């Protein structure tokens, strides 16, 4: 400011300052100090992400060397025998009988999250459309609380609910009916209600609020004029949804689904409790399974006992694959959301 005032201005039009010089001149010394301090804070989230990625890669490198490509071809994940001489492969030591493969976990992660997505998307979209198009604003606000509550329920509480309430109920009813039909992959014993199917249902419940709340905002933003056009043409409300609302929100719903998917991929504790926790590729949807995130939580305790340290590194490799998969889905989701809204939506985990 002062710099501008003190500048000896020649009569006539002042010389144009460069954009950069002008911006500098507008800031006092105190402003610059404040800006510096805030800039440091501004970099912290980015720095944290880079640090996480760097550490993950660094921790995983010994395991990557030890496992090679077998990591993506092996279904078993065995921490190895505690007592015995360490074996050496590719210059890296590990416990005897240790075998690290991500295949079963990767399968479990992808399949459970996809089933969850298939269940959650139609329900969320239907619910959101009903909420916005049919119910009065006052009721909308009250019912919005359900979405917030559902988004905020701790995942361990979802686990508790899945183990004691949802799992047994599904096991006694729906699962048994489906199993009796006898479609391949949807048949066989339904176990005790813990397994791929129950975990997918719980995951679906957990991602519904993400997809539904974005869809709700999208449906609200459909231009009134287009809806009036639909009414003028004599369309029924359902047809208006089909020909006006759905085309308008389609891209946004896809983006919301991708964000929800990323959440389902990374979910840990709820899945750990309901999955039955078995590192195998399930033979039917009712069999126990595991995911990458749940395995890390389940196995880290045991892995800490390994004197060669390879178990911990192998879990880092699992984490790295998980981080890669979620980052790719997140990138995709953010790029899609950017296409239809300028302020990226603050969703991804909880509330």
């Amino acid at each position, binding site marked *: 400011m002062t710099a501008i005032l003190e500048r000896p201005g020649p009569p006539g039009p002042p010389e144009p300052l460069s954009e950069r010089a002008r911006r500098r001149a507008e800031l006092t010394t105190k402003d610059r100090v404040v*800006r510096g301090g805030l800039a440091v*804070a501004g970099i912290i989230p*980015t720095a944290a992400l880079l640090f996480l990625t760097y550490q993950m890669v660094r921790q995983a490198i010994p395991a990557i060397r030890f496992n090679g490509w077998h990591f993506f071809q092996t279904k078993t994940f065995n921490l190895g025998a505690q007592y015995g001489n360490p074996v050496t492969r590719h210059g890296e030591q590990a416990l005897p009988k240790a075998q690290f493969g991500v295949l079963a976990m990767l399968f479990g992660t992808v399949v459970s999250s996809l089933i969850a997505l298939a269940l959650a998307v139609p329900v969320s979209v239907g619910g959101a459309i009903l909420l916005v198009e049919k119910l009065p604003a006052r009721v909308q606000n009250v019912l919005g609380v359900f979405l917030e509550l559902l988004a905020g329920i701790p995942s361990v*509480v979802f686990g508790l609910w899945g183990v004691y309430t949802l799992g047994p109920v599904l096991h006694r009813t729906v699962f048994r009916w489906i199993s009796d039909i006898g479609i391949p992959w949807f048949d066989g014993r339904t176990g005790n209600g813990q397994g791929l199917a129950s975990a997918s249902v719980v995951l679906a419940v957990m991602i519904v609020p993400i997809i539904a709340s974005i869809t709700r905002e999208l449906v609200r933003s459909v231009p009134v004029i287009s809806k009036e056009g639909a009414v003028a043409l004599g369309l029924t409300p359902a047809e208006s949804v089909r020909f006006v609302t759905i085309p308008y929100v389609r891209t946004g719903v896809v983006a919301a689904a991708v964000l929800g998917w990323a959440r389902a991929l990374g979910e840990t*504790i709820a899945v750990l409790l309901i999955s039955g926790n078995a590192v195998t590729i399930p033979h039917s949807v009712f069999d126990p399974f595991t995911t990458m*995130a749940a395995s890390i939580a389940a196995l880290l305790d045991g892995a800490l006992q390994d004197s060669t340290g390879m178990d911990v590194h192998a879990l880092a490799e699992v984490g790295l694959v998980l981080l890669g998969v979620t980052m790719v889905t997140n990138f995709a*989701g953010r790029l899609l959301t950017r296409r239809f809204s300028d302020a990226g939506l603050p969703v991804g*985990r*909880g509330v």
Partner: protein
Amino acid sequence: MRRRRRLTDRVFWALCGLAFLVIAAPSVSVIVSVFHQAFPALGWQLFTQTTTGQGIQNAILGTLLLLLGVLIVAGSVGVAAGVYLAEYAAGRSAAVLRFFSEVLAGTPSIVIGYIGYVTLVVEFHWGYSLLAAVLALSVLVMPYIVKTTEVALRQVPTTLREGTAGLGMPRSASLRRVLMPVALPGIMSGLVVALAISTGELAPLLFTANASDQDPSFSLFHHSVPYLTNVVYTDLSLPGRRYRATSAAAGLISLAILVILIALGRILSGRARRQTARMSL
């Protein structure tokens, strides 16, 4: 023909209603189920005894302590970062910082927990500690605070900015005296969301805070911290009805904290909306 269209319409809305019920039912069912299972354990001893006895006093205090830590660490850094992105950063660098912050929001919590364990607990020799737990949680929730702060500041009407510039106010004074007070309710509601997430997280704490039967202390290093979600998790797998009830009771208390935070968030965001409406003429 006309009847068929009307029928389709009915069927469509019936299906939407069903979808809506499917959304609403779980949230009711979760609460009823948790309350039902926690019933045998409910009583004042929950608040007066620790987990060695019949209560979960230490876990409640520990969770509150962690929330305080998150408010201090993630709150200060996140709000400052959000202010920087909204007011000072420009062009490409701002876009990059914003993008990475959003990607951080999507990072699986167990990855944050793992790195917290490997670096903070082991490499830095902090042990299972309050500081490691608070940092892990803070990294997890910081992106939300950054985002809501940025959005709240962006919603401050341009006329106010122009007014302060016209009066010759320095940028920092304009920020502190004019822009921040207007954006405050929005920022606070972001903080409340961050606290709500922190209350329910377990994965990042499992290997940084560990667990403890004692009341938490304020010492930052080498002391395990008890917290509610861990009680839910560990007591769930212990045999016996009593543990199952304690587990559900801990879940119930964390749900109660959550409900309080959601109510607070609603009040604040309502205030933020009115603030914006009043300011934009």
